[in-house]
């Protein structure tokens, strides 16, 4: 702090004073009672006393009027304050501020002035009006030290900071001492620590985040590492998602595959059982057929053998019959002879009726034999007819079986056709599905292309928008205009200026009346200059100003309006130049209207830029989701190409059109179709299998029936051979012959009966004889007849037997028992070899099993497609490489985080160290006595030529005493002069540390010359560092040389070789 100027009016005895202070030692000299101490008091009051304080009452001018003090001082370089206090009840205070000492502006007024002053001074005086504020001139330790009066030596040596009402004084001293009293090592370390701390933290202690700061560097690294880690996490996530999907699909496939295998096995086992059943049935049928054949042949052989045996027996029987017949014939002949005898006897009696009777009997006999033959013939015919019927029956069966086989063949062909058709349709359906997949893929490609195109379009728009934005920003940046709101102030200024100029525009007429011809120039209202040379009076009219110049003689400038009005115009013009012109110039315009237009233009540009920013942001937001569009397109195209390649050369258009017609949806429809077609194909396959089996069975049956038919035909043909005319004709003829013979026999029998009746009637006499003979004949005849009948019967039976035997023999001869038995054996072997099915299987069961197999196969096919897709996707992911990268990124992040923490801890440690060092330092420096003591002691020791070794000050700067011969002596025991000198050294030391002005009012008056000289040197030395103001009546004690001051020097005289200004108060102040 340095005092610059002091002006006083009506202050006690001083009527007026004006003093300009120099920067060094100011020696204000004057005789006693001039008012030197009053000046010192005026300075104290200007700085410390509120203008309304009653404490100013004693300083009311003796001549009346309130005292006024104006003090100008610099608190720092370019921090210049001017305080003006008009003391008294109606007084006032004003504080002005200036950076250059010329241009001041008001900083505070009234009560605010003292508060501000105390804030500037920081002398430990609280704000006025605060709690505990003392009445009168405020006091503090520093105020006492720096501005004390001549009688206040004790106040300095006995004073203490303890008594200050505010702590600012102590803080200021502590801060000042701290800066100069520190240990060099400590200072060096403190500086280094401060550097370390400042590298990491702002002044306010916040971590620095600007580029280049350690925190920023570390956090950038962490951010970078985190972003890298997150990027790889994303990739690994995608990768693992794909891998998981693939694993799930593969895992899902396994049970299905197992189910399918089980279903296939189940179906195969059922199918096998079904086939086994069918095979065994067929084999059993073959066995039965073979058994029948063998049985037939064996029966044939047995029949033939039995027939032969029977025939042989019949031959014996026939021979016996013949013998019996012969014997009977003999008996009969004998009986007949006897009868003949009887009959002869009777005939004799009754003519010869016996002749007719015999003939009739012979006829009857012959007819009976013929009838027997005919009936045998009829029997043979009927037998042949039966064989023919059998053959026809067999043929009918054969034909029926043949038809059945043909039907089975047809069914088979039809089933195969159905199977083929269903298979073809399935293939077609599969093709359509692929076409559908391809269409979907193509649509995806198209969609991806659209996205890419849209992205390209958006990017083009974005570029254009960015260019437009850049252009607008460039255009806007070229326009520099003040804020819109300032225009109103400018307009007001323009209006004020116009109004002010209007006040000048009063209009006047000047009449120039030359005494002789004279050249003069005129310019009205700042217009063109007009020159005249005339001796005639000339009237000149102007609105605001008129300039008349007579070259070489005079220039007269007449301006309209009052002085104030002109001053106002000048002030407004000055403001215009300062406040408006720069804006106009910067904006490149000449008028406010143009500036307004520029501002409007700038506003529009700002709006356009804002709009463009929104546009760019909107486009970027639109582009963002399309970032992966090329990748999507590539994937979709590759997938579509792969599908197209799979499809090969098919008619895409036709198939596509077909797919398009599928309702309700192609995919669903195709899936349903595929399922239906699979079922149809399966059903057709079942039908085919069944038809195939039926056909095989039919063929085998046909073949067996054919053999049976052939055998039957052969038997029939053999039986029909004796009837070339046909069997019916032969039967008819035989029946007719039998009827005829029966008629003849009946006629003969009737005749015989008639004859016998006649004989009975006529031969009643001979009846007894004849009866006996007859009985004998009868017996013989009966015997003969019986024998004959038996013989005939035997013959007939034998013939019949022979016929049958012949037929059987024929059949036996054509039959091959060995082959049949062989066939039977093979059939049995085959049957035996065939496995026995575990159980009976129904066709429905087999069908259901097959359907399950098809269903599971479809599921697996669908799953395989999914797996194939997932495998394709897997090839697009990062896999183990991404995991490695992620692991590295995590390690990097861990290190970066650790590094960041390390830097943070390290920086915190530096910060803490600095804080602790400062706290330690403050604690050390707060003992102000320790800091300030050595400097005072040094001066005092030198002054007293080491009589006193030290000066003891306590922590609050109270002087405890001086050290003399090792003992501390109280200052009160020092002489007045020495105490005065000690207090001066104290004041100078403190002022030096604080770099503030100190006022010494009539100090050192009791010093001897030697000490005075010592002080003079000390003051000259210190005056280089701070301002010292000495008020003295003995200038010789302070000035280098009073004689070197010229007699006509001004009030202030500055010495050349010393920083000393002599101020002659006798001239500087006027007393009342």
């Amino acid at each position, binding site marked *: 702090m340095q005092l610059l100027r002091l002006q006083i009016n009506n202050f006690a005895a001083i009527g007026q004073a004006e003093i300009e202070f120099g920067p060094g030692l100011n020696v204000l000299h004057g005789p006693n009672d001039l008012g030197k101490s009053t000046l010192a008091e005026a300075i104290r009051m200007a700085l410390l006393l509120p203008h309304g304080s009653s404490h100013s009452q004693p300083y009311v001018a003796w001549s009346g009027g309130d005292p006024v003090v104006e003090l100008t001082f610099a608190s720092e370089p370019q921090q210049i304050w001017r305080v003006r206090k008009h003391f008294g009840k109606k007084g006032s205070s004003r504080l002005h501020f200036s950076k250059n000492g010329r241009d001041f502006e008001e900083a505070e007024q009234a009560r605010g002035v003292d508060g501000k002053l105390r804030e500037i001074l920081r002398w430990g005086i609280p704000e006025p009006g605060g709690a505990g504020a003392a009445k009168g001139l405020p006091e503090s330790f520093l105020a006492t030290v720096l501005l004390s009066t001549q009688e206040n030596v004790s106040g300095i040596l006995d004073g203490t900071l303890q008594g200050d009402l505010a702590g600012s004084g102590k803080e200021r001293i502590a801060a000042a001492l701290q800066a100069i009293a*520190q*240990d060099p*090592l*400590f200072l*060096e*370390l403190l500086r*280094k*620590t401060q550097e*370390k701390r400042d590298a990491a933290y702002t002044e306010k202690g916040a971590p620095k985040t600007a580029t280049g700061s350690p925190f920023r560097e570390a956090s950038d690294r962490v951010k970078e*590492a985190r972003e890298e880690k997150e990027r790889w996490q994303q990739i690994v996530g995608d*990768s*693992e998602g*794909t*891998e998981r999907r*693939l*694993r799930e699909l593969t895992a899902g496939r396994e049970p299905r595959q197992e189910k399918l295998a089980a279903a296939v096995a189940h179906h195969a086992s059922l199918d096998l059982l079904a086939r086994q059943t069918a095979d065994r049935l067929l084999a059993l049928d073959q066995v039965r057929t073979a058994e029948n054949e063998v049985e037939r042949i064996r029966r044939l052989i047995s029949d033939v053998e039995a027939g032969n045996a029977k025939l042989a027996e019949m031959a014996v029987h026939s021979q016996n019959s013949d013998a019996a017949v012969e014997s009977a014939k003999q008996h009969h002949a004998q009986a007949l002879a006897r009868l003949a005898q009887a009959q002869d006897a009777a005939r004799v009696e009754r003519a010869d009726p016996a002749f007719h009777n015999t003939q009739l009997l012979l006829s009857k006999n012959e007819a009976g034999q013929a009838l027997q033959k005919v009936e045998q013939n009829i029997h043979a015919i009927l037998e042949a007819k039966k064989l023919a019927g059998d053959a026809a029956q067999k043929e009918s069966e054969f034909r029926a079986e043949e038809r059945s086989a043909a039907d089975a063949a047809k069914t088979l062909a039809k089933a195969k056709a159905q199977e083929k058709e269903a298979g073809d349709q399935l293939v077609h359906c599969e093709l359509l599905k692929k076409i559908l997949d391809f269409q979907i893929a193509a649509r995806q490609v198209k969609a991806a292309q659209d996205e890419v195109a849209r992205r390209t379009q958006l990017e083009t728009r974005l570029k254009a928008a960015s260019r437009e934005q850049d252009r607008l920003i460039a255009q806007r940046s070229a326009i520099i205009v003040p804020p819109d709101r300032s225009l109103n102030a400018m307009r007001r200024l323009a209006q004020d200026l116009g109004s002010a100029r209007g006040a000048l525009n009063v209009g006047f007429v000047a009449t120039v009346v030359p005494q002789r011809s004279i050249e003069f120039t005129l310019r009205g209202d700042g217009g063109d200059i007009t020159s005249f040379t005339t001796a005639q009076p000339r009237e000149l009219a102007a609105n605001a100003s008129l300039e008349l110049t007579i070259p070489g003689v005079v220039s007269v400038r007449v301006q309209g309006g009052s002085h104030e009005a002109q001053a106002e115009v000048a002030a407004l013009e000055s403001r215009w130049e300062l406040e408006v012109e720069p804006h106009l110039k910067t904006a490149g315009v000449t008028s406010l209207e143009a500036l307004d237009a520029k501002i409007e233009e700038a506003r529009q540009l700002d709006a356009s830029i804002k709009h463009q920013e929104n546009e760019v942001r909107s486009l970027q937001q639109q582009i963002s989701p399309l970032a992966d569009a090329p990748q999507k397109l590539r994937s979709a195209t590759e997938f579509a190409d792969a599908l197209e390649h799979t499809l090969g050369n098919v008619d895409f258009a036709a198939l596509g059109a077909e797919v398009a017609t599928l309702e309700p949806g192609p995919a669903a429809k195709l899936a349903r179709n595929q399922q239906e077609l699979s079922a149809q194909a399966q059903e057709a396959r079942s039908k085919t299998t069944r038809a195939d089996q039926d056909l095989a069975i039919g063929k085998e049956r046909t073949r067996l029936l054919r053999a049976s038919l052939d055998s039957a035909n052969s038997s029939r043909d053999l039986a029909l051979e004796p009837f070339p005319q046909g069997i019916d004709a032969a039967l008819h003829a035989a029946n007719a012959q039998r009827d005829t013979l029966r008629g003849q026999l009946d006629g003969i029998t009737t005749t015989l009966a008639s004859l016998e009746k006649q004989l009975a009637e006529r031969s009643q006499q001979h009846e007894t004889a004849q009866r006996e003979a007859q009985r004998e004949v009868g017996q013989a005849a009966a015997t003969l007849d019986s024998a004959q009948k038996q013989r005939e019967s035997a013959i007939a039976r034998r013939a019949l037997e022979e016929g049958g035997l012949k037929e059987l023999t024929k059949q036996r001869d054509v039959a091959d028992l060995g082959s049949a038995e062989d066939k039977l054996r093979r059939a049995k072997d085959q049957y035996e070899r065939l496995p026995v099915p575990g159980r009976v299987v129904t066709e429905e069961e087999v069908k259901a099993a097959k359907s399950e197999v098809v269903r599971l196969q479809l599921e697996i096919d669908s799953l395989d497609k999914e797996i194939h897709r997932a*495998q394709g996707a*897997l*090839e*697009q*992911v*990062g*896999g*183990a*490489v*991404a995991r490695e990268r992620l692991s*590295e*990124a995590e*390690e*990097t992040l861990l*290190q970066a985080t*650790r590094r960041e923490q*390390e830097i943070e*801890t*390290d920086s*915190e*440690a*530096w910060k*803490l*160290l600095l804080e*602790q*060092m400062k*706290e*330690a*330092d403050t*604690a*050390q420096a707060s003992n102000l006595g320790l800091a300030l003591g050595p400097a005072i002691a040094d001066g005092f020791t030198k002054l007293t030529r080491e009589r006193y070794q030290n000066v003891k000050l306590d922590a609050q700067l109270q002087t405890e005493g001086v050290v003399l011969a090792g003992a501390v002596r109280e200052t009160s025991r020092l002489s007045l002069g020495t105490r005065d000198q000690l207090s001066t050294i104290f004041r100078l030391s403190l002022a030096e540390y604080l770099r503030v002005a100190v006022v010494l009012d009539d100090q050192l008056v009791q010093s001897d010359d030697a000490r005075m000289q010592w002080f003079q040197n000390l003051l000259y030395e210190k005056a280089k560092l701070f301002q010292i103001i000495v008020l003295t009546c003995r200038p010789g004690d302070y000035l280098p040389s009073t004689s070197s001051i010229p007699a006509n020097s001004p009030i202030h005289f500055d010495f050349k070789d010393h920083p000393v200004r002599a101020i002659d108060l006798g001239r500087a102040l006027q007393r009342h």
Partner: protein
Amino acid sequence: VLKLLHTADWHLGRRFPTFPEEGQKKLSRARMDVVARILEVARRNAVHAILCAGDIFDEPNPQEDFWQGLVKILRNHSSTQAPLFLVPGNHDPLTSDSVWAPNHPFRAQLPGWVHVVDRDDFTYELSPSAVLYARPCRSKAGESDLAMALPARQPGDERLRIGCVHGNTFDIEGYQTNFPIARDAGVARGLDYLAIGDTHSFRDVTSNLPVPTVYPGAPEPATFDDNNAGHVAVVAMFRRGLRPRVDAERVAFWRWRDVRCRDMNDLRDLLSTADLDRCVLRLRFDMAVSLAENSAVGKILRDLRGTEAAHGRAGILVEDRSGLRLRAGTAADFSQNLPPVLKDTVDRLDLLIASAPLEAEKEKARRALSHLFEMLATREATGGGA
């Protein structure tokens, strides 16, 4: 005898972001330098072929420096060189825009004796009695067993059959997509030797089978976990049916050492380690030290790490000082001649260490004390005097 040199996992262009910048450069350069040593081993052993089973580059599109560097080394070794077969692996899969693409300038600049396996049916007759089958990776991940995709031995084929693919034989849950290789693939496909690559340690995974299936490992280790890395496999094949002989030959420049110091002796012993300048050293601590020891640790670390003016004694150093703790009561380490204000500072920090409720606060105070000690020690060392 047919002799082969089998290598893999060069990982040219691999980055080492967890290392200091200088270390990153050294490690990256080492990956390129080892290629020349591999070719030299091949020449010295007069092998008939060199098989590189995948991951030649760390990514499918390496920076030009790396593929140009490889071209340069290969061209410098063009004389009397056996054919070299480069198989794309999962790190550098064969794709249309990879370095392996036919139109990539890398391919055009490769010498004629270098063959890129860029077909699935790659076959090369090494001699009338020996044939090589190889198959490339075409993506970074895949489920297919490339070894099982090699053609099977046909009846009557009596030649030595060598397979070369990239993938791994570990059937680990979650890793099936990394081109799994069945351990008996060599036997199943009628091969006499199956050269594979992926894991970075040298290992014969089928030592109990007649057909060796060998990982030669990375020729230069890439992590501290790459145990037994740094080799190539030199394979001698005698005749069909006789198990080939496989020898590991070391080619790596760097040895990776993970060191944990539990006291100052451990740390000091480290300085006498042989070939320290060829070590990639990761130094971790599990010890409490006084301020003076802490200062000594700092000095040793500077020695190991090097400064701008001097090379460090360790080739590459990675430090983790999280386990290095300051002992309590270390304030006694300070000189008694300190100015009162510094003594006061030390006392204040010591009090904080003793009384702070949180360990973080204590650690901060310890670190502050350490800073102060370090400043004083440095000043003393530079002649400033305390």
